[in-house]
């Protein structure tokens, strides 16, 4: 940990700066609930979010992406580290160090969009109550002003204001997600944390919500911290992407660069695992000849698939956490943990061999689709 805790953000365009964030959950066993270890859910994570951008946190289940997002909102308190946030008034505050009661004014500036639009809306409340609740909690406006604001918010997310007396059950998944977004926008937040906002939606509805989020970002100048596991969605919506593995960030850079030229072997493996919605690019099918393969004729060659499983965050491996699964592992990786290096301006990687490895990305072909 850095000795001096300075609470200034150097770059003017940065809205949120997270430094050396750690969140460990205790593991207790037996009748006496004896402490037997810690799940290192977030283990020394450092990144920043620039005003008006979308930063995506990606990784597999248990990698700590949701815990990181929840720490940023102080929904849970981190064990250590700094979460510096530039408020609307221009002050820089450390969210991690603030007392709970002094967080409320800050909550207006940071809001959350949840994953499951079925469990995140109270079925006994009308849309007016749901979307208007943040206003009531913060004592904003009279009842009639509140109704006007709710109507405005519903219109903003593409719902008819007449719906405000209805209950959530009358709406489909996509419409409910719009309601959740309207609620998140009620207090004019500047940072929206969206935790898997489209993964519970049907494919045909996902695009509507992604378009809405892009549109709102442009109109309201919003900043998104976007937590997701679907890399196609992430590529579509993000300016920059941070890849997490077992509680650590392993790579962070601009989205086009990350997808085209990944510098961490785990990023490469993630990209290779995405099923491609184009049968012509199917692994082992050369050319664009669309002849139907006739079933069982011989072995089909396959893409390189990552073997093994995600490491246990309560007992991570020695050295680099990824080394047991890494195809490029050398002795150094087993013995020494790599540090978080900026290999070129704005491109951070945690890998000993990132400079020498030639890793494969995803090409964005010209003239296709």
């Amino acid at each position, binding site marked *: 940990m850095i000795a001096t805790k300075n609470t200034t953000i150097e770059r003017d365009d940065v809205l949120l700066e997270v430094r050396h964030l750690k969140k460990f959950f205790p593991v207790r066993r037996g009748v006496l609930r004896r402490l037997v270890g810690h799940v290192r859910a977030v283990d020394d994570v450092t990144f920043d979010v620039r005003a008006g951008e979308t930063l995506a946190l990606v990784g*597999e*289940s248990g990698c700590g992406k949701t815990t990181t997002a929840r720490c940023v909102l102080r929904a849970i308190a981190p064990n250590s580290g700094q979460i510096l946030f530039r408020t609307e008034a221009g002050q820089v505050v450390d969210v991690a160090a603030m007392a709970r009661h002094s967080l409320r004014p800050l909550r207006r500036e940071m809001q959350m969009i949840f994953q499951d639009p079925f469990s995140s809306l109270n079925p006994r409340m009308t849309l007016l109550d749901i979307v208007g609740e943040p206003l009531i909690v913060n004592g904003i406006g009279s009842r009639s002003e509140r109704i006007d604001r709710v109507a405005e918010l519903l219109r903003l997310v593409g719902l008819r204001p007449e719906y405000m007396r209805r209950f959530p059950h009358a709406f*489909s998944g*996509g*419409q409910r997600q719009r309601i959740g977004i309207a609620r998140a926008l009620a207090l004019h937040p500047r940072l929206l944390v969206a935790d898997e906002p489209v993964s519970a939606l*049907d*494919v*045909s*509805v*996902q*695009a*509507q919500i*992604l*378009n809405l989020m*892009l549109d709102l970002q442009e109109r309201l100048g919003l900043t998104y911290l976007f937590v997701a*596991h679907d*890399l*196609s*969605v992430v*590529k*579509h*919506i*993000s300016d920059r992407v941070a890849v997490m593995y077992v509680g650590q960030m392993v790579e962070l850079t601009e*989205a*086009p660069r990350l997808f085209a030229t990944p510098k961490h072997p785990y990023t490469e*493996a*993630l*990209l*290779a*695992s*995405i*099923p*491609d*919605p*184009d*049968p*012509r690019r*199917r*692994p082992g099918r050369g050319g664009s000849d*669309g002849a*139907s*393969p*006739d*079933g*069982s004729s*011989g072995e*089909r060659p*396959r*893409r390189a*698939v*990552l*073997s093994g*499983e*995600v490491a246990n965050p309560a007992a991570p491996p020695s050295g680099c956490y990824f080394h047991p699964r890494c195809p490029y592992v050398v002795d150094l990786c087993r013995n020494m943990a790599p540090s978080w290096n900026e290999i070129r301006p704005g491109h951070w990687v945690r890998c000993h061999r990132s400079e020498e490895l030639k890793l494969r990305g*995803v*090409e*964005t*072909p010209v003239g*296709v*689709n």
Partner: protein
Amino acid sequence: MDQAPPFLSVRDLKTYFYPDEGIVRAVDGVTFDIRRGATLGIVGESGCGKSVTARSILRIVESPGRIVGGSIVLRQDITRPDPDVQAALDGRAEIDLTQVSPEGREMRSVRGAVVSLVFQEPMSSFSPVHTVGNQIIEAIRLHRNVSKREARDRAIELLRRVGIPRAEQRVDEYTFQLSGGLRQRAMIAMALSCDPLLLIADEPTTALDVTTQAQILDLLQELQDQNGMAIMLITHNLGVIAEMADDVAVMYLGRVVEQGPVDDIFHAPKHPYTRALLESIPSIHSVPRVKLPTITGSIPHPYNRPKGCPFHPRCVSYMRGVCERDIPALSTIGRQQVSCYLYENTSVAAAGE
């Protein structure tokens, strides 16, 4: 295109549910074929009836649902006879699975031995109080006349084949001791225990992470190459379909709206729903941050099924006075079949594209 008749033919299948509130036409006239050794991908969004179709084939539709029409015909392949199919057919050339008792001898010899099922959530489809091995052994001994010892050896071999490390130890473990990926592998091992001719995989990778998903998909292809079994792969993930399927059936609200070889479906989609669905997904290869084309509206509630073509309220090519009257029949265009009035009269003529 195949000279041999398909091994399983589903024709105009209708499975309705009769809850107190009304009728839900979960599957409403579904027709498709499954060829031996090939993969049929069934794509659709929630409520399209893809899982109920799978359950209808195995006759495990839960009350208040039942099959009210159509047929599911299972045939013996004369060139490659299979003892399990012979047992189920009992000397006949083919059998209509909708006509036999769900608890009867025929159905019991089909399930597991001829057609088996891999569920989406392996945690809820295994028993938590029996070891993985005992559950696989039970399935083997139900269909094969072997000793416990032999069945156990086979169970270990199956676990090894699906890539479970230390299979001889894992066989005595309970499902809660396995990770998500290993559980799904164990589920597949159980489904394969009696060498089925058809493996129905209902969203087999939806609950899994991408790297595990890639492992499971590769495993399925490998097993198919080795055994020549057919796979009916049910998913809403078009990427998975594009990588795995030979043929694709696109379902919407209980009906197949379009079907054909995978390349034709992805590169020359005919039905407005298929087109819109393909355009609306962000691809890893597409240009980021541009507006995605969307399908307006949302999937209707099962009690408010639109009249006529089920897709007409959301369709960009909706023709007033035509689409809302009757359900369009399947027309054949080239190698595809499509259920849409845009193609009613143009059938064979417009085949060349």
